[in-house]
């Protein structure tokens, strides 16, 4: 990502500070990935909870939590503005913490997780995108403030 990336967006006005867009330009790609992961995590947890909640309740609840976090970040990116940016930043940090904690947890004590979550093994089953996404998200959200 270079500084010319946002040349298409008319982001020159410093006056409109509170209503800037987060879901355009590179942010559009983030909206897509967060949307996909909201759907993936939500459908995964719903299906698993309906089919057999007793098998791995912890894993299924964590998937549901992940879905809520992803959903909120997607919504914040689409909404735009400083409040949404801060909220999304906090959620991205929580997401990264979640991936790292759950990822380590699944490696240290696999017995706690008879079934996988979105964040198991640092998101290996999802091509490690769950680790990459919050980092990219935070970089974008920090850049968006200055733009």
């Amino acid at each position, binding site marked *: 990502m270079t500084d010319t*990336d946002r040349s*298409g*967006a008319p982001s020159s006005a410093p006056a409109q500070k509170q209503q800037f867009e987060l879901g*355009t*330009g*590179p*942010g*559009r*790609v983030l*909206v*897509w*990935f967060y*949307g*996909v992961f909201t*759907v*993936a995590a939500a*459908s995964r947890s719903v*299906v698993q909870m*309906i*089919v057999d909640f007793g098998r791995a309740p912890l894993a299924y609840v964590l998937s549901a939590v992940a879905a809520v976090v992803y959903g909120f970040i997607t919504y914040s990116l689409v909404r735009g503005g400083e409040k949404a940016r801060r909220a999304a930043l906090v959620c991205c940090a929580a997401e990264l913490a979640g991936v790292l904690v759950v990822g380590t947890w699944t490696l240290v004590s696999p017995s706690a997780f008879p079934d996988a979550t979105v964040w198991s093994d640092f998101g290996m089953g999802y*091509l490690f995108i769950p680790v990459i996404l919050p980092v990219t998200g935070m970089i974008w959200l920090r850049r968006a403030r200055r733009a």
Partner: protein
Amino acid sequence: MLVALTVAVAVTALALAAWCGFAAYRDQPTKDWHFIGMAVVSVLALAQLVVGIVRLAGGDRPEQGMTIFIAYLIGAFAAVPAAGFLSLTERTRWGSVTVAAGAVVLAVLEVRLYDIWGS
């Protein structure tokens, strides 16, 4: 399921990803031709959805469960059109990146569909 169809969707999706990735590289938004490409991939994914449901109705069962199979079929069908809509309102290179990402997601879903159905 129909392995040939799964492979066809995956290959066309990757081609679409490369094509839109190239457009992004050249700093171009998605154009009419890209949308025709998306339509072709979507039609193939729709055909897959239909074939999958017909096979289920015919009594065949996927190895890893029917619910997951149907969820992935629907996801595979929706992936590229959803990315296409996002690129409609993002008339920059980033719209092209979004469609490329959507097509890659579809290719991954195809691999998962292949696993879920089993041999």
